[in-house]
């Protein structure tokens, strides 16, 4: 099913079409390799009868939308208080070492984007690491080499 068809299907859920902008941006971002280039914003705008500028104003507000290219795998480490108390910084540094990339950037081969994120709602299972939005719980620095090996093999 094309993105345009999927967006039209989404529209039926809402009394007003603008409500579909978040799910439409989500779908379109997936279609464009995990980020929203200008043409993606135009596609959403056309499907919902909005302007690309309006879609940009939405995409720029929400953390899960990316306006620059990202790696094929996104690794996000929660560093809010409870994770921080449980060794999140050591987890961040272990990922930096294993992936060879600084938090906040993408590896040169485009394989990985590494970042820290705000509370993922898993404080009791710290440290929480989201890998392409799937949460790994109770991650410790010593687990990181194994996780990275698994990701490289996948």
């Amino acid at each position, binding site marked *: 099913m094309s993105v345009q068809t999927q967006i039209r299907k989404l529209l039926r*859920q*809402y*009394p*007003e*079409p*603008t*409500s*579909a*902008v*978040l*799910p439409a*941006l*989500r779908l379109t971002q997936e279609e464009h390799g995990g980020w929203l280039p200008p043409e993606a914003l135009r596609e959403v705008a056309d499907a919902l009868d909005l302007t690309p500028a309006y879609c940009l*104003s*939405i995409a720029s*507000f*929400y*953390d*899960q*939308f990316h306006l620059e290219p990202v790696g094929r795998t996104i690794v996000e480490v929660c*560093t*809010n*208080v*409870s994770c*921080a*108390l449980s060794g*999140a*910084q050591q987890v*961040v540094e272990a990922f930096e070492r294993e992936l060879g990339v600084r*938090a*906040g950037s993408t590896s040169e081969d485009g394989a990985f984007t590494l*970042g*820290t*994120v*705000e*509370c*993922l*709602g*898993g*404080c*009791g*299972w*710290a440290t929480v690491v*989201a890998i392409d*939005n*799937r*949460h790994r719980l109770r991650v410790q620095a010593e687990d990181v080499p194994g996780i990275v090996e698994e990701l490289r093999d996948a």
Partner: protein
Amino acid sequence: MPERPEIVFAGTDGGALTRIEDYEAADGFAPLRRARAMAPDDVIAELEASGLRGRGGAFFPTGRKWAFVPKPDQLAKPHYLVVNADESEPGTFKDREIMLRVPFRLLEGCLIAAHAIQSKHVFIYIRGEYEREFEVLRDSLEAIRRADLLGGVTVVLHRGAGAYICGEETALLESLEGRRGQPRTKPPFPAIAGLYAAPTAVNNVESITTVTSVLELGASEYAKLGVESSTGTRVFSLSGDVANPGNYELPHGITLRELIYDVGGGVPGGRELKAIIPGGSSTSVLTAVEIDTRLDFTSLVRAGSSIGSAGVIVLDDRCCMVQLGIRVSQFYEHESCGKCTPCRVGTRWLTQILQKIEEGRASQPDLDLLLSVCDRILGKCLCPLGDSDAIAVLSYVDRFRDEFQAHIDLGRCPFGGESSLEGILAPSAMHGRHGHEVVSA
């Protein structure tokens, strides 16, 4: 060990009720049948009698909130129920466990609530980062549809996209309408002009799930649990420096000592308890001597704090309170929607002044400035986000003033690089600084 009645998690036996057959076998959907046999106003009266109050943080009586929604003959617009599943207050992770373990009880609660406010349209706004929770709800909703239990009500799962502010009810409604999640001026309240300017009840996941339990037990049985100002159970999220972190459903009115030591196994590694954040990071911190404070609305207000979202964060003696202030403030700075100046600018100032104190560059007037900025945020914003930062930071200074003073007097952090929060990289710091910096005094 305190008693642990299971209300929200009833029938799960430590697992999950994710198959509709299992949920029905545990008397599922009997409360819905009971509610649909009642007049809508009688359901609201039942909720009022139960004493159930909102579990998202504001603790507003659920029945009264519904009573504010005009009747269809008073206001001829569609009525909406919106469930706030945008859990993101640091220290809080209960709603996701509720969605994973008792999704049918939540969805049944939605249908009961829809009956009570005479709505045919339910939206569940679920946090964008909650992938598995979304899938479980989607599959459960499909099972309910196939079992023909919807009764003409449509339930739409709407995914957020990463913005803490959308947990604030009017920001959530803006987001659901396809705009940036920026809070609205109140009044009008959502009950009168909410989603698409129509009458709307906005309720938290745990509140709505508990609605099902109230209809199952009956208001008077439910109200026997907990304490007078705070009936029933609460799913407490316990995290931080504690041996057994996790979600624990317990009656309101148990003490912090019971939660942290009897249930949570105490502070590990032979460390000493230093402080407790009782209701998510936006609530005032308590000190170790306040360990016998009861976890209910009134007791925490008396202690100068709040039960908030019941996310309890335990801090041991390795935690530098200035660093805690920085990390908490970085969060609110990052999540400020930018609409109100005191919040947008104030949260940033708080972070930067605290960093100056932590780095040993601060002098006495900086501490006064910190308190002054808090004062210039408090009560001056459209929504509670800015206040949350100010309340948290003020409470750290209030209860640990000597520690702040020591940073200034020594010209360095007294923890000498050994604090449990040392060097933590917040997203706002990662993305580099932009905009203006606070001019150093």
